[in-house]
């Protein structure tokens, strides 16, 4: 049985993090950057597309400078709303600005083993296990490739990974770990097997592609070629900026937003110039570098502000957002992880970022923890509940019950109570026991979360992928490996 997916929708909470004037100022700064400073596109195909549309191309440096009119015209053809398809159509995700979905994070290199608790190098089996557990949760709506299948050859690793996820879950797959044209073509062929045909895949994109930019103001050649192939086949594609204050971006937040925006917007414009109307999304996970060491922080007030501000930008361009939240820098599931993941996810949710990345990581998206995965799901559930706000009407005021109880007494035996008590949030991992009960065991959320993950892994049977499709996928991968 495929689970229904929990998403934040029709929120009562709002936040104006940037005024329309401020958004316009960032937009104008972005266009200035693209026109005057330029963005690096180290791909022959990309440079040819830019040149054909009249942009100034420095082929030696592979830097493109495009006028504001060209960028703005290109962005006009971005579809404002579309759906990400799932193997099970009831799990399709509507990217319409009124849904917030959570995915797994990616792409890590180590895993805290679900059985032994020992940290080790990630492998394909981990990808299978994480996908299977994610399939069973109501919070996780889609997959990123959570960890790298380092026991598979580098040239086809990304294909082994998506195959493993499809075989263990019916939910949508957004891969961030395919970044060359050859692998992208094979991935699309594999997705086509599930959708039925290339044409059906266009209607039902069960795969989407996320490519990282190379901040500041650059892209990776392989990523660009992969993104262009994806757009050609109607696979939703997004560019993610991870511009970081101090190192790959200016020290100031507005400047860092503008640098990241220039990367994403220029990349998006390229896809629209090549394939007008291709489904695209904005992706971002800006952060601040630690001022002392330059390290990636994976959390902090700057991240929280970026989480909220970026959706205002993507809304301005009318394209969905895939936003980095969670991804704590903490080394184990602890105080820091709780603060960072709660606030980053709250700030990205309150502005209705369409997709949130994602649950499960420690140490800045490097080490997968099954306990963190489950606790992150609970964080999302808490925010999901909070976002519903307070409903005020005759029923929720409950005057009849208030009058019946009168001064003193209690509400435990009221029909109104019986009717509404299940509206209240019931946590899975919060400790609400008596002190004595806690003292005898001294266990906590981390233990319960890990237990839950283990239990799901033992018991959950995802809807299997047709074996014939699996075999065809193996052939596609094998043909690439033999080349």
């Amino acid at each position: 049985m495929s689970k229904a997916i929990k998403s934040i929708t029709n929120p009562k909470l709002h936040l104006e993090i940037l005024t329309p004037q401020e958004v316009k100022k960032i937009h104008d700064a972005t266009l200035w950057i693209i026109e005057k400073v330029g963005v690096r596109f180290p791909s022959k195909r990309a440079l040819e597309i830019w040149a054909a549309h009249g942009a100034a191309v420095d082929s030696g440096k592979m830097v493109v400078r495009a006028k504001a009119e060209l960028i703005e015209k290109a962005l006009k053809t971005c579809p404002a709303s579309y759906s990400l398809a799932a193997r099970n159509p009831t799990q399709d995700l509507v990217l319409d600005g009124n849904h917030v979905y959570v995915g797994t994070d990616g792409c890590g290199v180590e895993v805290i083993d679900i059985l032994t608790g020992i940290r080790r190098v990630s492998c394909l089996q981990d990808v299978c296990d994480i996908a299977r557990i994610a399939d069973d949760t109501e919070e996780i709506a889609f997959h990123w490739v959570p960890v790298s299948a380092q026991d598979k050859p580098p040239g086809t690793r990304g294909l082994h990974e998506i195959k493993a996820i499809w075989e263990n879950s019916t939910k949508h797959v957004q891969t961030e770990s395919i970044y060359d044209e050859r692998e992208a073509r094979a991935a699309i062929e594999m997705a086509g097997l599930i959708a039925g045909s290339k044409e059906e895949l266009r209607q039902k994109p069960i795969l989407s592609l996320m490519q990282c930019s190379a901040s500041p103001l650059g892209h990776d050649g392989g990523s660009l070629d992969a993104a262009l192939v994806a757009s050609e086949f109607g696979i939703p594609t997004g560019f993610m900026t991870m511009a970081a204050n101090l190192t790959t971006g200016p020290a100031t937040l507005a400047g860092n937003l503008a640098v990241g925006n220039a990367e994403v917007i220029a990349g998006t414009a390229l896809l629209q110039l090549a394939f007008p109307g291709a489904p695209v999304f904005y992706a971002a996970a800006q952060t601040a570098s630690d001022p002392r060491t330059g390290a990636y922080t994976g959390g902090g007030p700057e991240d929280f502000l970026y989480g909220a501000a970026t959706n205002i930008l993507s809304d301005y361009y009318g394209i969905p957002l895939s936003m980095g939240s969670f991804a704590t820098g903490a080394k184990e599931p602890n105080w820091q992880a709780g603060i960072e993941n709660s606030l980053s996810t709250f700030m990205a949710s309150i502005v209705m970022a369409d997709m949130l990345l994602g649950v499960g990581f420690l140490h800045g998206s490097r080490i997968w923890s099954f306990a963190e995965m489950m606790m992150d799901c609970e964080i999302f559930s808490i925010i999901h509940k909070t976002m519903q706000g307070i409903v005020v009407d005759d029923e929720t005021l409950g005057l009849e019950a208030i009058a019946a109880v009168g001064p003193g007494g209690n509400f435990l035996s009221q029909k109104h109570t019986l009717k509404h008590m299940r509206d209240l949030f019931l946590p899975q991992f919060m400790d609400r026991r008596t002190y004595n009960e806690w003292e005898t065991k001294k266990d906590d959320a981390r233990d319960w979360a890990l237990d839950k993950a283990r239990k799901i892994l033992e018991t959950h049977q995802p809807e299997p992928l047709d074996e014939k499709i699996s075999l065809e996928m193996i052939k596609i991968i094998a043909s690439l490996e033999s080349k």
Partner: protein
Amino acid sequence: MTEDLFQKMAQSILDGDSEIAVVLAKQAIQTGVDPLEAISKGFVVGVNQVGANFACGQAFLPELVMAGEAMKAAVATLEPEMQRRGTTRQVLGRVVLATVQGDIHEIGKTLVGTMLSASGFQVYDLGVDVPAARIIEKVKEVDADLVGLSALLTTTMVKQKEVIGELDKLGLRRKVKVMVGGAPVTRDWVQKIEADGYSEDAVGAVGLAKRLVGLD
């Protein structure tokens, strides 16, 4: 008079001001100050002070980088005069740095380069997406003591192993120490590919490099 100049030199490094550092270096040449003294009694004093400020948490990374760049500019200005006098600045070691083939991620590697060169290493930075053959070629050309290999992707990280294998084949492995870096690099990986060490940040890389060349 010269004492005053040395002090200004140290201050220019503390301020991370490359332009002033260059002016002071030229002034030293014009007034006949020994360039080696200008470095050791002037600029290096500033570098050490920034290092000390950094170690106690007062200075931030950008100050360290700017000090490193100012130092590099000063040394480059003094270089012709050193050659004319037939003297050379003693370096702690020669380091070839590169981001491995297939990988374009630059910042970590560049930062390590700045830190190493500020600390007295001679750095040959080959840039990004560098094939193993070019790295080996450079190692031989400059008679390197150290090679630093950066990678951000698990799919390109394997190239670090390839370079180590090539060095091994040529019998250079005992002479040339290899340090690796990048977000996916872990202690396990370092052991697996038999590199000589890794650091999780640029400042740590300096300590590592010093250890690998037998200092500290």
